[in-house]
């Protein structure tokens, strides 16, 4: 047993800072969100009227919000699958290579240090429809016209691609960790049997690291719902029209452009159910109960 101290009050004193911050800035505002959701804000935020569940009903009947929900799911699916697939491929290569491993590894995780804002700013310029250098390159290579400022489909592809670039590093960190813990004997056997790389990856390694893949699947989905806010804000402002207005951006607009605090709180609850639900599954379903960065 490691519990060598028994004074209750000392333990509470040590926990106090964490508990105070948790209550004051996490639980209390979260509870207030639930209360605020029952009110409608009128006169530019000056007054609040109790409206019961009207805000929820309003969201349920808003085609705009339905679209936002739908596009968030599409966006999350593209980002999660894209970034995990690229990271798995890259991690496998880094894991297999014997010369220059650490150089490749550090290059592979560089994007972990970039913010979504930075990656978005870079891509706004490189993909700028008329002067972007990558736009020019892609247009010449593929013979299609790029204008994601006016074309919705292209806008969705561009914001998802930008978010994928940022997410790869995080996934590589975990996948390399998982691959390195595979016993060496399995590698030896696989090599002796002369299985090809693709078969080796899909039949041997993926099943072995499936717990990590499941963990990453949940964490990436959670992240995809709220972290890429800067990508939308910097690149498209939800446009063209509202084609890239994912839930978190919709919420921001409701709260801070339209001052509809009650409605925005209701949208927060929708996000809480989605994101919080996934994290609870993660916490209780696996014992690997840590989530990076969130709070």
């Amino acid at each position, binding site marked *: 047993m490691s519990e060598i101290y028994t004074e209750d009050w000392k333990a509470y004193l040590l926990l106090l800072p964490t508990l105070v911050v948790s209550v004051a800035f996490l639980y209390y505002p979260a509870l207030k969100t639930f209360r605020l959701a029952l009110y409608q804000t009128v006169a530019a935020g000056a007054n609040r009227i109790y409206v019961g569940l009207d805000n929820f009903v309003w969201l349920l009947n808003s085609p705009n919000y339905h679209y936002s929900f739908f596009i968030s799911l599409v966006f999350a699916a593209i980002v999660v699958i894209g970034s995990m697939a690229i990271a798995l491929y890259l991690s496998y290569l880094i894991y297999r290579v014997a010369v220059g491993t650490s150089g490749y590894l550090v290059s*592979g995780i560089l994007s972990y240090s970039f*913010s979504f*804002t930075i990656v978005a700013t870079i891509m706004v310029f490189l993909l700028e429809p008329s002067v972007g250098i990558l736009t020019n390159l892609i247009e010449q290579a593929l013979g299609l016209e790029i204008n994601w400022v006016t074309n919705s489909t292209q806008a969705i592809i561009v914001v998802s691609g930008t978010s994928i670039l940022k997410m790869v590093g995080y996934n590589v960190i975990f996948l390399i960790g998982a691959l390195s*813990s595979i016993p060496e004997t399995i590698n030896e056997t696989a090599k002796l049997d002369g299985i090809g790389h693709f078969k080796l990856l899909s039949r041997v390694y993926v099943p072995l690291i499936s717990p990590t893949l499941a963990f990453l699947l949940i964490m990436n989905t959670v992240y995809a719902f709220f972290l890429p806010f800067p990508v939308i804000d*910097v690149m498209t402002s939800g446009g063209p029209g509202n084609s890239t207005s994912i839930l978190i951006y919709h919420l921001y607009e409701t709260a801070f452009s339209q001052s509809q605090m009650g409605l925005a709180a209701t949208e*927060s609850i929708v996000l809480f159910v989605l994101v919080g639900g996934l994290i609870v599954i993660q916490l209780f379903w696996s014992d690997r109960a840590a989530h990076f960065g969130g709070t």
Partner: protein
Amino acid sequence: MSVADRFERGRLRTTLKRYARLARREWKLHSQLILTLFVLLVPLVLVLLMSTQTKTEILDFTYIGVGSDGLENYRIVLQKYGFLNYLTNSFVMASLIAVGKVGISMLAALAIVFFDFRFKRFLFLFILLTLTLPVPVRIVPLFEIMVDMGWNDTMYALVLPYLASATSVLLLRQHFLSISESLVETARLNGVGPLKFLVYVLIPMSKSMIIGLFVIAFIWGWNQYLWPLVVIQSSSQQVVQVGLAELQGATGGGQTLWGLIMAGTVLALLPPLIILILANRPLLETFNVQMK
């Protein structure tokens, strides 16, 4: 040349030969790695180059290389567009978050692992469940609380909401639990108090993990965007992520000044990038604790 020198050289040559042979056998892996990393990192290289180009060079597709503007764009961004100020604010914010987070998480983990007290399971779960409450879930009331307290537009608003960290508590807890029982027993027999135990035993034994957590928290704090955007109004208090987004309105003679924006981007990404490169070992080790 002495015998020892010749021996050293010979050994170096065999090592190089062995590497060359390995590299030859692995050329397929290397070419795939280089190609993938090139695609992922080419934007970064382009940005570095273009941040040194003049207004006309940067708009020329065929001009890819170090520009003739040198560090001029950097000077302008730092002096005329408030980046010195933004960078300072971001640095203070990220450092305070990192120090505060790791500090109070160590105290909490110390209590959870080495104390026996009532409501322990409940309080641990209480900390754990804060994971379900990221900023967007509580952003509206949090903003109102800051306004009520008179903290909006100040460093308090940027730092305080980020201090509690279930992640750090969990990882430190896992690490503390792995410390050998005999060491803990010795501390108990010698009557070492909890704070002394933390400072003289736990911290020296967890150096790598503490650095790792510090790096994670610093990068996280440095990269925050949504919350500063909402809670900071005056540009003198603003952080570099939001400052960078605002810089995109920078125009001169009807043209967007992309050189300035790229220089601002490089300034905003360098500090976390350098920290990641320098501390990549402890960072990877800290993440890997999760895998066990």
